[in-house]
């Protein structure tokens, strides 16, 4: 055969490879259509989108490594790992979120009476009643739910428009939230909102001084048809172990009742005003608003001891007169042990300075 034929044949191969390599880039470069929607209107549409039914596939990537993998493995994984989620959403109190792993999954099925949490790895099903206070769970990381939550208390002067982008094959309008509170440790939150329905499709949270998002959650597929009720509902299979629910509120009350002289929580901490939380015991305080929040909670002695040693061993922990402090992205955490009182945990999206000031206020030390 001639050298000419050989060259032609290899040219066919090269052209095929080039076309295949260029395809993903071409699809990715499809332009998104922006719409002339003011920021305040876009926020209103996003916040009102809880009733929009959809199903989809979302991926969240967290860069928050908290040294609580022993005490709260679920929370630590959620905030530091890549989490793939399947979502079926019929409404605010009827939805299902499956966290999909390589060889298993954890499904959270929510109905008006509470939630079922199915874990394939341990073949267990847990029933929880709706709780005012609960640990972060996979449904909280669904872009639509997280976007609504982060935008819910944003004021108009904190918001701006940042163009449009394609998310999950749909035109998503960008909305940037820059918190106004001086204590804020979040530099900005970018929410990409579906123009037609107001559904937040992607959320990026960037910490102060960081370039990559501390939390990035986005839909890869989204379908706006209402998923069937049978997919969302859950009945524990016969061979599953059914576990009683976790009672976070009870744990907090137990801790609070045990202390003889609880610290009286001030009306303001680190310049943030205290806010009321329905269903929370009086010993738990929540301060701030929007994406700048600081929570104060009493800890039972055994939890405090464990956390104290974990924090002391954590890289980057700062120990001063008021307590041991660590930060992970925008999240700060400090364990304070005021004299003649139990231990308190302060955690929130506030700057290290604000955290230290709050800890000093609680312990009565000069800040």
């Amino acid at each position, binding site marked *: 055969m001639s050298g000419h034929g050989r060259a032609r044949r290899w040219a066919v191969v090269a052209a095929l490879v080039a076309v295949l390599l260029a395809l993903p880039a071409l699809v990715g470069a499809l332009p998104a259509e922006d719409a002339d929607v003011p920021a305040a209107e876009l926020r209103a549409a996003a916040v009102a989108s809880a009733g929009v039914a959809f199903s989809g596939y979302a991926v969240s990537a967290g860069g928050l490594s908290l040294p609580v993998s022993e005490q709260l493995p679920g929370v630590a994984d959620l905030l530091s790992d890549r989490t793939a989620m399947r979502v079926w959403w019929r409404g605010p109190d009827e939805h299902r979120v499956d966290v*999909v792993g390589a060889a298993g*999954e954890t*499904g959270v099925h929510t109905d008006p009476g509470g939630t079922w949490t199915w874990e394939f790895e*341990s073949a267990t099903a847990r029933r929880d009643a709706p709780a005012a206070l609960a640990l972060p769970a996979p449904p909280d990381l669904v872009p639509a739910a997280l976007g609504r939550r982060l935008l819910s208390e944003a004021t108009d002067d904190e918001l701006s428009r940042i163009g449009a982008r394609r998310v999950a094959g749909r035109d998503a309008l960008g909305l940037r939230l820059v918190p106004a509170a001086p204590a804020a440790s979040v530099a900005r939150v970018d929410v990409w909102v579906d123009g037609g329905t107001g559904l937040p499709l992607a959320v990026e949270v960037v910490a102060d001084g960081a370039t990559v998002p501390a939390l990035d959650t986005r839909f890869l597929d989204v379908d706006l048809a209402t998923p069937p009720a049978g997919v969302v509902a859950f009945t524990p*299979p*016969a061979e599953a172990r059914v576990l009683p629910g976790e009672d976070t509120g009870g744990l907090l009350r137990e801790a609070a009742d045990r202390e003889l002289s609880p610290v009286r929580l001030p009306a303001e901490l680190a310049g943030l005003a205290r806010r009321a939380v329905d269903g929370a015991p009086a010993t738990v305080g929540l301060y701030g608003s929007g994406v700048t929040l600081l929570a104060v909670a009493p800890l039972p002695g055994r939890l405090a001891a464990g956390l104290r040693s974990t924090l002391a061993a954590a890289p980057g922990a700062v120990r001063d007169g008021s307590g041991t402090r660590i930060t992970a992205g925008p999240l700060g955490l400090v364990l304070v042990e005021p004299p003649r009182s139990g231990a308190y945990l302060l955690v929130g999206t506030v700057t290290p300075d604000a955290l230290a000031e709050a800890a000093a206020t609680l312990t009565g030390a000069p800040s």
Partner: protein
Amino acid sequence: MIGVELRKTFGRPRTWTTIAVLNALPVLVAVLLRITDLAPRPGEGPPFLSAVLTNGQLYPLAALAIVLPLFLPIAVAVVSGDAVAGEAQAGTLRYLLARPVGRTRLLVAKLVAVLAFVLVTVVVVAAVGYLVGTLLFDAQPVAAGTSVSGTSLTAEQLAGRTLLAIGYVAVSMLGVAAFGLFFSTLTDSPLAAALGALAVLVTSSLLLTLDAASPIAPYLPTRYWLAFVDLFRDPVLWRDVVRGLALQGVYVGVLLTAAWANFTTKDVTS
């Protein structure tokens, strides 16, 4: 031509020895599980292995999951790497091409033979797994089982999804076969061709464990191999299965075109 190649592949004792060796590991694992009753905790070890103690009908899947990461690709790489280079090394490629058949047709026939080997191997592993599973463990003929999502699957659903999974695993091996066949046209040494295909797989598996490689992860040949687990979610998660099929198709297409470009113009001296 295709018939000749098929007869050649399955007429060789070493083909059947390879398949027998492939089955030895799942059988050994099943016997050990039966004796010790120590199933891995769910979520640990190969997928589905934890469930076989209560439902032996799942053992075909566990058997495939056991051989999928290493044994099966090695066997496919050896057989596909041997396809053309083996003839060259034995000195028979010259005579093969002296017959009035096109080189493209020879390549296609070789490919079909390798595909048939992949399919037969996967089916035999699943069949032996089923036999071993139903003989050694409790089978649940009526209430078939629970999906990964915690819903009940009927026996028909379970059987159907198992068949799909067997097919998916077979397709997943096509990329390996294509790499082996392409390398087989590059060299006269079947060993070099098989090792080349294995080197690609080891590279791919290693890169998948690195976060830094995540931008190229969707294009790595082993990326979607475990997606057969998604067939047992309820509803089935087709996303990765579809991507896995498409990715294998792309690899097979590109590598076969490259093998054709190389082989049809190659100077055959041995």
